[in-house]
């Protein structure tokens, strides 16, 4: 076993021992592609094997469906607790899974999966559990945790701290001036209230390439991790005429393709065209992705374009269509959370803007875009992002008695850009 594998296994065993121990809560920090889903599935299996019933709280219906399919595939008797409007996705294992809108309909299931919003309607007098599992605990808000916390005597929270923070339509200023801050993440709230809670970081990203993991780790995470793959394990093989940015990224994991500096509208046509051309080349040229399981041709499903706004998505999709490219995923950062691709083309959130904004600077947004790939990530941007970072006024309100954020968006953006400087490729 590789040393990375050994460290990962050690972390998993530590999680298991903690779960079987006496800690009231255990938090597992899982960087991108560190095996979180496998961990949840594995722990559920082990818990069921020792006779436990396992309730699992996830954040979205898609996450619930994916997890249920995986658990049922692992042979666990699984129940899906869902809302009125839910319809099973394609390929739903009807035979193996029980579904219901009420807990009572899922009697006898060893594992029950539902969204936090759905669990919030389960009454503690119906049933409580000795241990609950919360998946994506950094996407979940404290307000959601408050509504389900009473169902479980102990909790295991698993999540990626580099995700987008929970969002509210409420005016932050009103909330902060009148109340203690209820908008933290579920994991953050738990750790603040129970500072002795053990936090076990999964130390290895199995997704990110050896060249790219350290950059993500340094810029966006307080607990360092490394890549599980060795430099010789992964390779992207391109035709010789590939775009220099693709060629560079194939070799180094990263490329920062820079168009000339300009203030441009959000749907920057030149950026759209550049991204569409790159995607087109990736799926039409003869590209193979190589990993220890052997080489295989890069398929359209292996490529994703990460954007910041919905209108950018619409424009990129239209441009791809014009080039006859279908099947390439184009989506915004929040919808790409938890997904993985071989190659990702990422629209830099600050590209072409005159002024940065808190939205565009959010560390989680850039982190999600830059950490979905297994082989390579090409960040496409207008030059001049460093100017914007420089010009961003340090005028955020400071609320007495609150700590500065662990990862500051501005700082993360700056660090990321600095690490990508050697991979800068000016657009032709």
């Amino acid at each position, binding site marked *: 076993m590789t040393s990375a594998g050994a460290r990962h296994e050690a972390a998993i065993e530590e999680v298991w021992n903690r779960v079987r121990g006496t800690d*009231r*809560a255990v938090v597992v920090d899982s960087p991108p592609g560190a095996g979180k889903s496998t961990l949840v599935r594995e722990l559920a299996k082990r818990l069921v094997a020792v006779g436990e019933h396992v309730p699992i709280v996830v954040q979205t219906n898609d996450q619930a469906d994916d997890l249920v399919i995986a658990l049922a595939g692992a042979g666990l008797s699984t129940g899906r607790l869902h809302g009125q409007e839910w*319809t099973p996705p394609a390929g739903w294992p009807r035979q193996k899974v029980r579904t219901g809108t009420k807990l009572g309909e899922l009697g006898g299931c060893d594992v029950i999966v539902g969204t936090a919003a759905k669990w*919030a*309607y389960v009454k*503690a007098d119906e049933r409580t559990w000795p241990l609950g599992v919360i998946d994506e605990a950094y996407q979940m808000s*404290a*307000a959601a*945790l*408050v*509504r*389900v*916390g*009473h169902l479980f005597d102990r*909790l295991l929270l698993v999540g990626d701290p580099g995700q987008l923070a929970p969002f*509210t*339509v*409420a*005016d932050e200023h*009103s*909330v902060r*001036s*009148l*109340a*203690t801050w*209820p*908008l933290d993440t*579920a994991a953050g*709230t*738990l750790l603040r*209230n*129970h*500072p*002795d809670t053990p936090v076990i970081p999964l130390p290895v990203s199995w997704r990110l390439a050896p060249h790219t993991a350290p950059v993500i780790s340094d810029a966006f995470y307080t607990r360092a991790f490394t890549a599980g793959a060795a430099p010789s394990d992964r390779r992207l093989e391109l035709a010789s005429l590939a775009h220099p940015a693709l060629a560079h990224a194939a070799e180094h994991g990263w490329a920062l393709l820079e168009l000339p500096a300009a203030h441009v509208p959000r749907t920057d046509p030149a950026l759209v065209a550049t991204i569409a051309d790159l995607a087109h080349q990736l799926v039409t040229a003869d590209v193979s992705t190589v990993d220890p399981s052997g080489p295989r041709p890069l398929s359209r499903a292996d490529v994703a374009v990460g954007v910041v706004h*919905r*209108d950018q998505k*619409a*424009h990129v999709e239209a441009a791809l269509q014009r080039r006859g490219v279908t099947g390439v995923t184009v989506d915004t950062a929040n919808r790409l959370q938890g997904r993985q691709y071989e190659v990702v083309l990422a629209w830099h959130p600050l590209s072409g803007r005159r002024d940065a904004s808190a939205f565009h600077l959010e560390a989680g947004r850039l982190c999600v875009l830059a950490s979905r790939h297994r082989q390579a990530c090409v960040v496409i941007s207008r030059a001049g992002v460093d100017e914007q970072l420089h010009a961003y006024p340090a005028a955020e309100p400071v609320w007495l008695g609150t700590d500065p954020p662990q990862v500051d968006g501005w700082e993360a953006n700056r660090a990321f850009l600095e690490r990508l400087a050697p991979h800068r490729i000016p657009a032709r």
Partner: protein
Amino acid sequence: MSLDVYQRLLALSQARAVPAASRAHRHLSPRPWLLAGYHLAGEPSAPVAIRYGSFRDSPKLLTVAEPRDRAQRFAALGGLARDLATYLSRYTVTEPVVRATGSGRELDVDLCCVDAPQLIVPNEATAHWVGLLGQYLRSLDDPVLAAAGAHLGWIASRRNLPGSSVLLTATDLLTAHWRTGQLPTEDGHLGRLLAWIEPPAGTDAWQAARDAEAMPPAGPASDPAWDAVVLRPALERAKEQGDVRRLKLAAAEVLAGPWRDTWAAIDLVRMLPPGEHVAKRWESDRWSWTRHRERVLAGTVSFSARLSDVPAYRFLHELETRTAALERQMALDDPLVMARYLATGEAVAGVVIKRDPEHTVVNAGGRSVLRPLLWVRTSAAFDRPAGTDLWWGKVGMVVRAATDDTVELMVTSGAVTRPKLGLLPDTDTEVVLAPFGPLQYFPDNLPDELPWPTRSSRPKPAPEPELDDDLDTDVVLGTTATTAATTAPPPADGAAGRVPEPRAVPDSTVTPASPAASGSTTAPSGAVPSGDSRGGW
């Protein structure tokens, strides 16, 4: 938002504000109580002058010759408290109203005040100050002042609730209905805003705004130059010679502008027809006032310093619900607000070019159900994905496909039975499909108590020692300015006229009169018992 930018550009190039709303989205009382104040720089509780009342031409003017002197301040604020009580006493008549209770399904008849008081101030700083003034008054032993403090506390508590019109600022009234071409932060200056909306004949908005800036400030934020040149001599004369005429004149001068401007803002918004949902939102304010009065009568009003625990989460839930509801109601009430969503592409305007009312689909249970189809021709491409929900009034539909100029929609609610097919828009009808459907009711499913994961496992640290905590600002100042730290007087230890600082009252258990208001919150300086408002929305 692109419409916002477009309007700002229009305003900028015309040097005149442009309308951002065609309906009034705030309730305006026929008899509001206005208040404008000026206070001593840096002193949160030392008003120099307050002008207030319901009558434009005969405001009351209150001045305090030595704002840092407790007795003087006390006397002046006593007058204000009594006048406020008189104003509020007009709002005690109740009427029976049917309202939803419990889960929102049952109906009940309850008594609600037919109208509620409304306080309008020039700007945000004054609104904030109203809260502070209330907090300060509640800390005093005097029952009249404390009662006024409780009322001001309730009034201030409504300020942060989207959609409430109990405490309005003139700047918010104007920015909610007009767009200027200046920096958004400059819109916080009432005089500048008015200059943009109604520049005096012969000047453009830029010049008018600069002129407005040169006037004394709208308080309570102070103007250093005015303090030094006008206020100081007036205060000194009042103190030394007991002659308050100069102070009164100075106070009248500094507050005349904001007083006039606040009324002008009200006049401008009154010219707009009220939005349809405004009365509904005001009813929520009336319920809150009714409950507040009941608590006052029962002696159970209490204010907690800051919300924490479950009430903090309940407050967040209420803010979120109200924010979404207000956004929806304003858009449905006012084409100019709906236009914002058209501009961003969240809403679609177009003409129905084809219908298939007979279209059916097979539902999950295997039955065939009616799901009419509509095709709408649009002027701009609709770029939201298939599956997006849109509404035409009560008819809900989902986008099936969109091309550059046509959207295909399947009706999913509101007109999916034969008797209701008549509710579908006809061919050639112009429609606006909005991202807002009928209001959904989400019951507040918060527990009564925080569960363990969100409750601290550590005992709360002992509060800091509060030695000398009641040191007040009532220092006896010499007649000459004492400016440097080294020459400042020592703490007025044991000086007469100290005022104890208000201590946060612990959350008490207010029992709301209405069964609808289960899960009670105390009203802190800014939140509201959640049961108050929900029924009204």
